[in-house]
């Protein structure tokens, strides 16, 4: 039988019809549809035993509890711990990144020693011996910078410096905690400053971005949320005063535009109006304070300084006076650089309103006792001013240290006038960086000691700034061993100190923490949980004191709380200091110079961690366009400067210049340029490196008269259109 054309057509037709009655077409289509969704660049949750583990966030300054999902013992993602009083189920972008950062390609995997311009890997034994030798040789000429804002690790670092005779060379990376703490001390306050937002009925945020950078941000957000129920009138009012619509401004009932760095003037203007309305205080300097603010901070003068209309200021003062539980919180829109005067002035307003140590007011939380001999207390740590010190080193007025230790800190990137600060750091004789990532500071160090990340080590969070109660939480290793050949920095410090003959009384950091926990367990506090609301305790409800082994609940993610405020005696209004610190005259406008503000978002990372990879997709075109940072200004400012959206501007400060793109946005007040923070890294990984420009490079740090604190939130820059 021959195969003719007709037979072939019949075969094809039969095959086609037959195929229609098989799963070939339908199944292939379905499989292709599913295959098209298998995007290789999206991380997949690995298969394996899933469990939840509890710890505390160390990367996020607000110190919230974390509920971490582990698969076969490896942390994969995190949520907030609902039972932790500082998170109540909330998690920040930085806290969330703790899991992902473990596996970052930018991690330092081995101890590294600088050889010429490159690094070579060395063993831990070699690194420890070298570090111990350097400690011995540099006795009396050592400085240390810590990026830890609240932990017992600072006791280890400062106790080591005390052994070396350099206790005054311990520095914290600048923060609101430091500035507010110093201000409180200068006013004669005792304890740590905190704000009870949960029980306040009117909150005035003066530059304090309560939900992004200021204080206990997660607690602030949960308190805000608890006061607002759907279809019900909010239980509290929130007013935001600042130069741009921050996260807090968007959540506020009212945004009052105010020039950056002028928060103190607003507070003093309010104080003057409140005093005029009958407010008074028992403070010994009340008469001086009254005379000072009445003469210098009339609504008209405040308007000239801040841009706030006299009527708006009067309205705010009226709202505060009428409120039953008002609260004023000062800050910087990017969490640093506001100097001490803004906090002092805001605290003075709270004193006038009689809002100290009362529900919904400013609470002075007790400080937990130290456990290491020679370690500095929190107020003593606040005394060192890193920016001032490095400026002095850069100017040749103070000799550079023979040995510089940086601990979880990236001062080469994260300080104002960054290029000048990096140069000052570079002049140190030998630089040791405890770093988890190859950041800017590690890159210029001589010895890089790879530090385990929080989920790989024991650590703690002790009363973060802004919490209206003393609170202690443990950070614990969730992995059986670190991802790389890293060690807990404090363990290395203790071992090196012992090797150098400077033993600090403990051979491992977990023993220091156990001693700390045993000490604080006697403070009469309680373990917070779902059944015990801390805000209810602050409002007057009793809480049973904890008895037993405190280590156990803390290891399970609980927090230990002492909610009894520290009694104040002899609190002043800071009249003398404020009078000396502040210029009551408005600065004259200069051509080509504009006020600079910084737009801060936690999702853009911190100097210590860079941009968390999981947040890259959340960076918008009006923050970063290609490799250029985009500055925002409103239409009126654009008209004034004769620039348009899409233009490029060169911004020049005393230590350097950056080029930024321009975007128009009415979220910034007239006369102000807002530049996002967190970009312009020259180190880290592909996700952070060479992405945009570092706005801190063009900021101007000045020393605030009388308080001596460095301040840069009121920076101005020269601008030129390119």
């Amino acid at each position, binding site marked *: 039988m021959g195969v003719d054309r007709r037979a072939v057509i019949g*075969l094809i037709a039969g095959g086609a019809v037959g195929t229609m009655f098989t799963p070939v077409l339908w199944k292939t289509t379905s*499989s292709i549809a599913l295959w098209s969704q298998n995007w290789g660049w999206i991380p997949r949750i690995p298969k394996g035993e899933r469990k939840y583990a509890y710890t505390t966030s160390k990367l996020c300054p607000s110190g919230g509890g974390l509920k971490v999902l582990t698969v076969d013992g490896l942390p994969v993602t995190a949520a907030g711990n609902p039972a932790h009083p500082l998170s109540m189920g909330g998690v920040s972008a930085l806290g969330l990144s703790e899991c992902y950062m473990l596996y970052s390609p930018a991690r330092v995997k081995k101890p590294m020693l600088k050889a010429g311009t490159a690094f070579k890997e060395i063993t831990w034994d070699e690194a420890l011996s070298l570090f111990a030798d350097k400690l011995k040789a540099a006795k009396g000429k050592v400085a240390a910078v810590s990026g830890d804002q609240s932990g017992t690790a600072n006791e280890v670092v400062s106790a080591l410096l005390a052994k070396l005779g350099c206790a005054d060379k311990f520095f914290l990376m600048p923060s609101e905690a430091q500035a507010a703490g110093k201000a409180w001390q200068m006013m004669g306050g005792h304890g740590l400053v905190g704000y009870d937002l949960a029980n306040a009925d009117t909150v005035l945020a003066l530059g304090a971005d309560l939900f992004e950078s200021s204080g206990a941000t997660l607690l602030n957000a949960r308190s805000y949320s608890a006061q607002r129920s759907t279809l019900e009138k909010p239980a509290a009012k929130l007013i935001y005063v600042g130069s741009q619509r921050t996260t807090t401004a968007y959540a506020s009932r009212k945004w009052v535009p105010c020039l950056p760095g002028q928060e103190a003037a607003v507070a003093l203007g309010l104080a003057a109006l409140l005093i005029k309305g009958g407010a008074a205080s028992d403070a010994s300097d009340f008469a001086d304070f009254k005379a000072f603010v009445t003469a210098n901070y009339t609504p008209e003068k405040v308007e000239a300084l801040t841009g706030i209309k006299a009527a708006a200021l009067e309205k705010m003062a009226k709202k505060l006076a009428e409120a039953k539980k008002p609260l004023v919180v000062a800050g910087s829109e990017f969490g640093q650089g506001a100097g001490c005067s803004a906090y002092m002035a805001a605290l003075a307003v709270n004193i006038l309103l009689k809002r100290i140590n009362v529900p919904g007011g400013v609470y002075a939380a007790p400080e937990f006792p130290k456990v290491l001999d020679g370690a500095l207390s929190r107020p003593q740590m606040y005394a060192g001013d890193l920016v001032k010190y490095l400026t002095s080193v850069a100017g040749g007025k103070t000799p550079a240290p023979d040995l510089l230790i940086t601990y979880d800190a990236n001062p080469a990137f994260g300080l104002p006038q960054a290029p000048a600060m990096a140069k000052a750091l570079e002049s140190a004789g030998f630089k040791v960086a405890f770093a988890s990532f190859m950041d800017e500071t590690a890159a210029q160090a001589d010895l890089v000691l790879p530090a385990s990340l929080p989920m790989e080590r024991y650590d703690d969070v002790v009363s973060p700034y802004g919490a209206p109660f003393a609170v202690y939480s443990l950070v614990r290793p969730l992995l059986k061993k670190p991802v790389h050949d890293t060690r807990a920095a404090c363990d290395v410090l203790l071992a090196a100190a012992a090797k150098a003959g400077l033993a600090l009384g403990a051979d491992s950091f977990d023993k220091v923490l156990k001693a700390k926990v045993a000490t604080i367990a006697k403070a009469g506090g309680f373990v917070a949980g779902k059944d015990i609301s801390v805000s209810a305790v602050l409002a007057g409800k009793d809480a049973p004191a904890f008895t037993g082994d405190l280590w156990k609940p803390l290891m399970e993610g609980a927090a230990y709380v002492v909610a009894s405020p520290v009694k104040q005696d002899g609190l002043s209004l800071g009249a003398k200091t404020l009078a000396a610190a502040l210029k009551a005259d408005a600065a004259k406008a200069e051509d080509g110079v504009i006020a600079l503000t910084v737009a801060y978002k936690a999702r853009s990372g911190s100097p210590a961690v860079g941009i968390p990879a999981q947040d890259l997709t959340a960076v918008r075109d009006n923050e970063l366009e290609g490799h250029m940072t985009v500055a925002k200004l409103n239409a009126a400012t654009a008209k004034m400067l004769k620039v348009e959206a899409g233009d490029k501007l060169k911004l020049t400060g005393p230590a350097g210049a950056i080029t930024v793109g321009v975007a128009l946005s009415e979220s910034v007040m007239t006369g102000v340029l807002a530049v996002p923070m967190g970009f312009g890294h020259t180190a880290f990984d592909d996700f952070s490196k060479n992405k945009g420009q570092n706005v801190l490079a063009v900021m101007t740090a000045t020393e605030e008269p009388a308080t001596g604190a460095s301040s840069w939130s009121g920076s101005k820059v020269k601008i030129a259109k390119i």
Partner: protein
Amino acid sequence: MFIVGLVGALVVGWWGFPQLLYSQNSQPIRFSHKVHMESAGMECKQCHTYAASGQYVGLPATEACGECHADETGGTSDSDKEIDKLVKTYVQPNKPIPWLSYQFQPDNVFFAHTAHTGFECKTCHPDVANMDNPPVQYTDRLSTYSKQTMRMPGCERCHAELGVSNACYVCHK
């Protein structure tokens, strides 16, 4: 010839095509659910637990197997050899066992077992509890899903029949 083409296509479509599309895979260890249920008296939830959220917690970690199978048996039976393979390859070096899942939903599906406890396991899963040998696992070479992974129409049909919401957010959070 039409008939030849028709029959050929039917044979290829119903027999040849599945052979081509699905790879046939065996579990790394010949695990007998039947022995563990009947002889060891274990219950499903001892190894297959739920998280507080209702999500399936996953397969047990190697340590869980090691609780009973810490040491090699040294026996010569097939079962003993299989146990020794487990101990030597996975338990002692504490390596995760690469179990093959018969039904593993992608990450964008939120499936709460606790909401489906009214059904018997075997309504959706192979009845492994009564099996001495684990069944062959088929993986779609194209989509990489297992053959028995429940597809969205299957979920939607059951929801519709039982009057349960089929809104997107019910399964996709």
